[in-house]
Structure formats: structure tokens, C-alpha cells
């Protein structure tokens, strides 16, 4: 019997909980997340920047496929340089198929020592899969084989889940997810196997929501990050805070946006007590709290 989300995690207000503690000198952790996707041309595109004339959906959708492909050919490498210059290691959440179709990209991430996190096999929502468990197992397997290590974390494509997704993830050895954006602190979710930790992710500092869906000007990548950060930074005087920033090469890696992303990272990382950690490191810290 699939579990209701509240059976996995009871409601709890953030105030009045026992305090979590970061290591000395850290008050706020930035969690950079870089998402790499495979858009199968045989399917409707995951996102669209331009709709076809008369709004008629078309298959294949060349304009939007190439828009995404630009991210993998050009945008990713621009972002890689930026992250290198900033000296931060993101969590790379990737459709497992990226290991097969863009091995140069996946290899560059592995060589940089970045954490690989499973993001399904390709960019199809979990609801549309015939055999969810098989796809989860395959995703973990493909990444493990490519990387030589098993991914510890998971993001569903579009953060989608069905009521039993977490049980399959746990059975496949996944220790944490980023799909649940319901808190500023990590929380532990019950599953039918081992518990899974939901790390604090958000749909607000997220280039798809901001740019592809919200149609904000490019400099909102900077302005919103800073507004968000100032609030959490002030609050981190009382409770440790974690702030995720989600990026996709076809959005954050384009020429008119990358500078806004870059200066946002620069600004937040220049503040005392701010560190950038990947998901695995946040998970290990959280597990050591109990």
C-alpha cells in the first residue's frame, strides 16, 4: 500500500525543533546543483523556449531540441569553467543516459571530482514510466558502471514522484533525494525499506522556474539569489541554513545569464561562514547529527 506523504513525514513547524549544528565557522551551506539531461527527439521536448507556429505541437521538435543541445555542446563547458573559477564542486544530477550519449560531459564531471547523482534514465516524468522500478535500477546501474561508484542521491525528472517512488529508490540504495522542497533543513522520510533523507532543495532559485517558466529577466538570477540569501543568512544566526541553487546548461550556461549566476555565487561565497557543499557532504553531516 503506497504511503501518503504525511505518513512518511509528519508536519512539524521549523520553530522549536532541536538545533542542528554545522562545524565551527560554518553557518550557511550553499548546495550547487547542476542538472544534465537527455531529451529524446522521439518525444515532446521537456521544455520549450519557442512554440511552433499556430501553437501546434510538432514531432520532431528541432528548434527546442537544438536549444537544449546548445547547453550540452557549449553551455556546460562555460559553466564548468565558472565552477572551477569559483572553486566549488556541484552535485551533478544527470539522466543516466547522458553517460551514453554525452560521455565527454559525464567524464568531465567525474574527472573534476564532482558528485554524480541519479536523475532518472532520460528526462521523462516518473508517472509516464511503465516500470518505474526497472528504470530506477537501470539509472543507478548505468551511472555506477560509468563512474565506478554508486550514486547516493536522486532527483526525479521534473522532481516527479508517484506515491511509491521513494520505496523503489530506497530499495535501489539511494540515500537522499532533492525532490521534496518542504523545509530549510534535511528531514528523514520513512520508506518500506531504509529511510531516505530529503535535503532542502527549492523551486525558487531554480533556472527552469525562474527563466523558462517565470520569464524573468536574466539579472533575476542574481537578484533573487541575493534576496533569498540575505533572509537565510540572517536566520542562520539562529539555525543552520542550507540554500540550493539549481542550474541547467541550456538556461544558466547561455551568454546573457552566466554572468548573473557567476556574480551571485561570488557574492554569497564571499560572506563569512558560507561554504559550498555537495549533496553527499550535506548528507554525511546530517547523518552525523543524530
Amino acid at each position, binding site marked *: 500500500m503506497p504511503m501518503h506523504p504525511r505518513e512518511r513525514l509528519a508536519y*512539524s513547524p521549523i520553530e522549536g525543533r532541536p538545533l542542528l549544528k554545522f562545524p565551527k565557522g560554518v553557518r550557511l551551506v550553499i548546495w550547487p546543483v547542476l542538472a544534465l539531461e537527455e531529451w529524446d527527439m522521439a518525444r515532446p521536448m521537456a521544455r520549450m523556449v519557442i512554440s511552433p507556429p499556430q501553437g501546434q505541437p510538432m514531432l520532431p521538435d528541432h528548434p527546442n531540441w537544438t536549444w537544449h543541445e546548445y547547453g550540452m555542446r557549449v553551455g556546460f563547458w562555460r559553466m564548468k569553467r565558472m565552477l572551477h573559477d569559483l572553486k566549488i564542486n556541484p552535485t551533478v544530477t544527470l539522466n543516466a543516459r547522458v553517460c551514453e550519449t554525452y560521455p565527454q560531459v559525464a567524464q568531465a564531471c567525474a574527472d573534476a571530482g564532482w558528485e554524480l547523482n541519479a536523475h532518472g534514465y532520460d528526462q521523462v516524468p516518473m508517472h509516464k514510466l511503465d516500470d518505474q522500478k526497472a528504470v530506477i535500477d537501470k539509472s543507478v546501474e548505468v551511472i555506477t558502471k560509468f563512474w565506478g561508484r554508486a550514486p547516493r542521491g536522486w532527483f526525479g525528472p*521534473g522532481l516527479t*514522484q508517484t506515491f511509491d517512488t521513494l520505496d523503489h529508490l530506497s530499495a535501489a540504495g539511494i540515500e537522499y533525494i532533492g525532490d*521534496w522542497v518542504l523545509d530549510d533543513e534535511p528531514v528523514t522520510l520513512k520508506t518500506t525499506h531504509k529511510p531516505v533523507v530529503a535535503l532542502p532543495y527549492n523551486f525558487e532559485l531554480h533556472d527552469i522556474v525562474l527563466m523558462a517558466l517565470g520569464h524573468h529577466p536574466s539579472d533575476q538570477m542574481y537578484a533573487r*539569489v541575493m*534576496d533569498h540569501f540575505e533572509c537565510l543568512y540572517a536566520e542562520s544566526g539562529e539555525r543552520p541554513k542550507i540554500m540550493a541553487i539549481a542550474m541547467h546548461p541550456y538556461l544558466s550556461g547561455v551568454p546573457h545569464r552566466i554572468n548573473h549566476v557567476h556574480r551571485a555565487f561570488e557574492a554569497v561565497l564571499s560572506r563569512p561562514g558560507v561554504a559550498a557543499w555537495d549533496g553527499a557532504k550535506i548528507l554525511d553531516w546530517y547523518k552525523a547529527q543524530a
Partner: protein
Amino acid sequence: MNFPKPAVGMLPNDRLDYSAITKRKRLKLPKGARMVVWTITNVEEWDPTQTMPRAVLTPPAGGSPMPDIPNWCWHEYGNRVGFWRLLQVYDDFKIPGVMNINGVAVKAYPDIVKACVDRKWEFIGHGYTQRNMQKVENERADIRKSAEVLEEATGKRPRGWLGPGLTETWETPDILAEEGYDYVADWVLDDQPVWMKTRGKPILNIPYTQECNDVAMMLIQHHKASEFYERAMDQFEQIHKDAKHSARVMAISVHPYIMGAPHRAKYFRKIYEKIRKKRDVLFWTGSQIAD
């Protein structure tokens, strides 16, 4: 209007005649105040087994997935974290709160209810669940149950009502009046309270807003966070000016999952930093306005 009359309930113009705001009897507030600001916080419980009322993120290639866990979580953040951030603003500026809450949310979020009861906020009915009133199976039962749940949790029967998404049927004001509600805020058609006819005793409509409302501004129109402050100030200054000869009411409406997000909360705060100290502005609840 040649619209056929509904079998049950009334057309809007049968409840309320058109009236130009400049040609009415003068409305006066105590102590020479020009205007009232009332602030409504909307707390909802979204049922994860149903389609989400709103979404910030659509699935790859679009559609409405079921279940929609990502958007359920996004809303839940508001009640776990965002609400407490907004509450601090109410406390710091001593704003009398109006809690517009779904019946089911009263049980789901007891900590929120307690915090508001402790602060003597006014609770108003917001439907038993976050569903369009036109889709609710039994409207009267829903309206009655909302009142009962609030009475049980707060010790007071709610006097005001704001429908989920401001939705109404032709009959809603009649049922509200019959069920003992004194005022409704679903009709955003004026800067002053207006009486609406019902088949029983009349019900008061208090000015509400879809304009200084975070769902419309942030979620539907995709404005940047600071626009909430900018628009509220523009709205405030104009209403203050307009209220020279007769009192007016301004509403500000927020949802913890939207304005309670870290990058937005400060713009909510900034509004009160700017207007709370104005001598000729009252900060009231809906009931105070109605009285």
C-alpha cells in the same frame, strides 16, 4: 443585463446596484483616520491525492501529473517554514492578523492555529478544503463545517468568509448569511464595504484584492519579488489620496508558500516598515471593519 436569472440564488446586480464611489454618503473612521489596511494570511492544506490548486513547476513536457508531489511539497514549505517568517512581521509591527484558513488545515497545522489563537487573530472561513465552491458537493455543508471546525479550534464562530480562489455559486452569499456569517470578501468591486442583498438578511462585502495578492502577482503574473512592495506602496498612496473625503479600505493578501519564501518575505516586511506608523491609517481585522 439580460442574463437569464438562476433558478437558485441571484445575479450580482440583483444583490447590489451599481453606485459611483464619489456620489455616496461620506464614510467616517474614528480619530480622523482616512483609511484602513487589513492583512489576510491564507493557510491551505493541499490534498496530495488531488490535483494541486497551483503549481510552480510543471513536469517535463507539461501536463498535470498525479500525484504532484513536487508542488505539494512546495506548498507544505509555507506551513513548515514560511508562515513563521511572516508571523515575525505581524509581531514586529503589531498587525492584527486575519487567518483565512481551510477547515482541513485547522487539523493539519495545529501549531499555526495555536500561534494565531494566542495572538487573538481573527479566523475567517476559507472553505473546508481548497476546492472551487462550484465543485464542492454540498455547498451549505461545506460552509457550515468550516464554521464548526473554526469554532471548535478557536472558541469563536467565524464572522467572515473568503471562498477558495474567491469562487462562488449564484447562491453563496445567501447560504453564508443563513449560516451566520456577517461578512464576505469575495467581491473585489469597491474600495468601501457594501451591503449585498440575500434571500434573508443582507451580508456585508469588505474590499479585498486580487491586485495586492501574491498568488496573482508572483505566481500567475511572474513579477519579481520586489514588485509586491512596489505595488502595495502605489496602491496605498493612491487609496490614501482618494480617501480625503470618505474612508477607504485596502487589503493585502499573502500565502505562506509564496510571500513566506526567503527572497520575498523582506518585501512584505518593508510595506509595514513604511506604512505602519502613519497616524491616519488604521490596521484592523475584517470584523473591526464590519463593525
